[in-house]
């Protein structure tokens, strides 16, 4: 993998805080810090995996990067254009470059539109193709994602989960995007179907030179598909590293615990190290702990962790972690 000198996607100090209103007068009483200062780059043609437990802000992060939200703070540059502060109406012209594949193929397809209409909709919005050209393009896309052309007139309910996810992928591809955010694209699918969809995503990446931000909680699948992986905990990236490095030599205690918690399909227990079982639950993002976000569950917690937030340190080229164990 060659790292291009300028990243396709550059995110700096992205914050997405959702206000909490309460009381009779709906006064603003606090905020959920779903994404709280996240920085990363995605280079052209690569897949960046974004992993973490539910509620850690990884989906919010993916949506915020595409400006599906009005972000609280931060810079987002995609394909040379700064989009962090643009109006939603100005963003429309950028949309063809950046697309999204959603988690739930059941909920993200309109049940009253045919497959053809679903895949054609982005073309209607953003291109001036004739009806015949659009139809040809839709059928080409259906070929590309492995859907039978004969099914173009059917409705989403007539398809299985894996096929529905293929429809969602075809729709995302319709405008020849450069960057696609895949938000848990396989979480709702059966094991044997997951592999089909992941292989399809990889084939399409090669064919169209796509760049992915692949959000998932499935660590072994991310290891398979991603070139680099970022680990999120409570709104922050705690570690980011090339995939091979992260899985063989994780540095942050949270990454270590997360990896050790994944059950390996191998019953000979000696094959794996001691499992680190974290105590307790993830704290609420509306009231994160003082100091390091992970200090309430960290097995290696020190006094400083409860006071000072650790800065990100580059341990090796491309391997960054935010933990007091590695300061200096």
């Amino acid at each position, binding site marked *: 993998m060659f790292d291009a000198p300028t990243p396709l996607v550059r995110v700096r100090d992205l914050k997405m805080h959702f206000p909490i209103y309460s009381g009779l007068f709906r006064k603003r009483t606090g905020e959920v810090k779903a994404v709280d200062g996240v920085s990363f780059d995605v280079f052209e043609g690569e897949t960046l995996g974004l992993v973490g*437990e539910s509620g850690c802000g990884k989906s919010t992060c993916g949506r915020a990067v595409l400006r599906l939200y009005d972000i609280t703070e931060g810079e987002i540059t995609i394909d040379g254009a700064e989009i962090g502060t643009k109006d939603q109406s100005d963003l429309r012209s950028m949309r063809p470059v950046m697309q999204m594949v959603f988690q739930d193929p059941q909920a993200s397809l309109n049940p009253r539109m045919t497959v053809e209409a679903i895949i054609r909709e982005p073309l209607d919005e953003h291109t001036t193709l004739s009806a015949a050209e659009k139809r040809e393009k839709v059928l080409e896309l259906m070929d590309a994602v492995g859907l039978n052309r004969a099914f173009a007139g059917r409705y989403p309910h007539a398809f299985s989960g894996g096929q529905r996810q293929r429809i969602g992928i075809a729709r995302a591809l319709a405008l020849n995007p450069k960057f696609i955010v895949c938000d848990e694209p396989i979480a709702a699918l059966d094991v044997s179907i997951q592999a089909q969809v992941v292989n399809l995503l*990889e084939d399409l990446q090669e064919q169209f030179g796509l760049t992915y931000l692949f959000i998932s909680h499935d660590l*072994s699948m991310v290891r398979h598909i991603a070139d680099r992986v970022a680990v999120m905990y409570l709104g922050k990236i705690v570690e980011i590293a090339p995939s091979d490095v992260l*899985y063989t030599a994780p540095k942050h205690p949270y990454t270590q615990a997360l990896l050790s918690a994944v059950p*390996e399909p191998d019953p000979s227990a000696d094959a794996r190290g001691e499992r680190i079982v974290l105590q307790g639950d993830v704290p609420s993002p509306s009231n994160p702990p003082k100091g390091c976000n992970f200090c309430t569950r960290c097995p290696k917690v020190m006094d400083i962790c409860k006071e000072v937030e650790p800065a990100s340190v580059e341990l090796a080229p491309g391997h960054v972690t935010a933990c007091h164990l590695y300061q200096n």
Partner: protein
Amino acid sequence: MPDTVKPILSVEGLQTVFNTRKGEIHAVNHVDFDLRAGELLGVVGESGSGKSVTMMSLLKLLPMPPAEVRNGRAMFDGRDLLQLSDDDLRTVRGGEIGFVFQDPMTSLNPVFTVGFQIMEPLRTHMGLSKRDAKKRAQELLELVGIPDAARRLDDYPHQFSGGMRQRVMIAIALACDPKVLIADEPTTALDVTIQAQILELMKDLRDRLGMAVIWITHDLGVIAGIADRVMVMYGGQIVEHAPVKELFRNPQHPYTKALLKTVPSLSGERAKRLTVIEGQPPILSSAPCACSFRDRCPQAMPRCGTENPARYGIGNGHDAACFLVEPEVAHV
């Protein structure tokens, strides 16, 4: 575990059918299995393979109609569960057999306190007084590792996180010291770090209380870590059954083999491409008269389309429903 141990639960020829407007769905087809005291039996399969319906049929937890348990016997403690009257079955459910449901978010009643819901089976099945039940409920919450148990009894489910709600579900299922605990995907809705907590808890409880556990899941990793024996289900049938190490080391059924290969691993060489099982799971609109995996099987033979293979034993407590391991063929 030697085969001579008398099984605590013995299921034979279980067949469950759903009568729908579009015809019958044969969800469970002639399922046989034994469960021995103190063992942890894993049941793996994809959605729609019949693993949950099998277990729910045993306790008549399915809505009937449309469901119908058409055939079979389920001997538990000298009685056939499938023949019991509703009143008798009530003493078994939640009493001698505990059930942990998949989704901790929807399985608890939001308008009752957690304490009330744990005390309910204690008062109904064991006839405890309110005070005793409360004491026992507190012990149970402590047993499943919820801190500050005495105070948490008065909390409502929404005040608990997902992992803690699943612990409450387990506490309810354990309330009456069941001989058998059926856990239907108890960790699927949870994060891996919380799942690890629940797995450790279950292993610990099984060792301490000596109950038998049936653990339903689609996650082969979970099975590898927790089960003694494994049944693999596909198309409403058991296609392979073996002790856990044997199954992972020496899978025989093409479905099991493919399933083990589709799951990427956290360690070892990274595969260029994932192995896929082509095609879709079968639609179970008729009773099986052919192998249900034949359309997706790389080793399908003409015979697979006309006959449904029986489960052929291959030693070491291992059997598979596939003509490839049929004794006569294997010797040719």
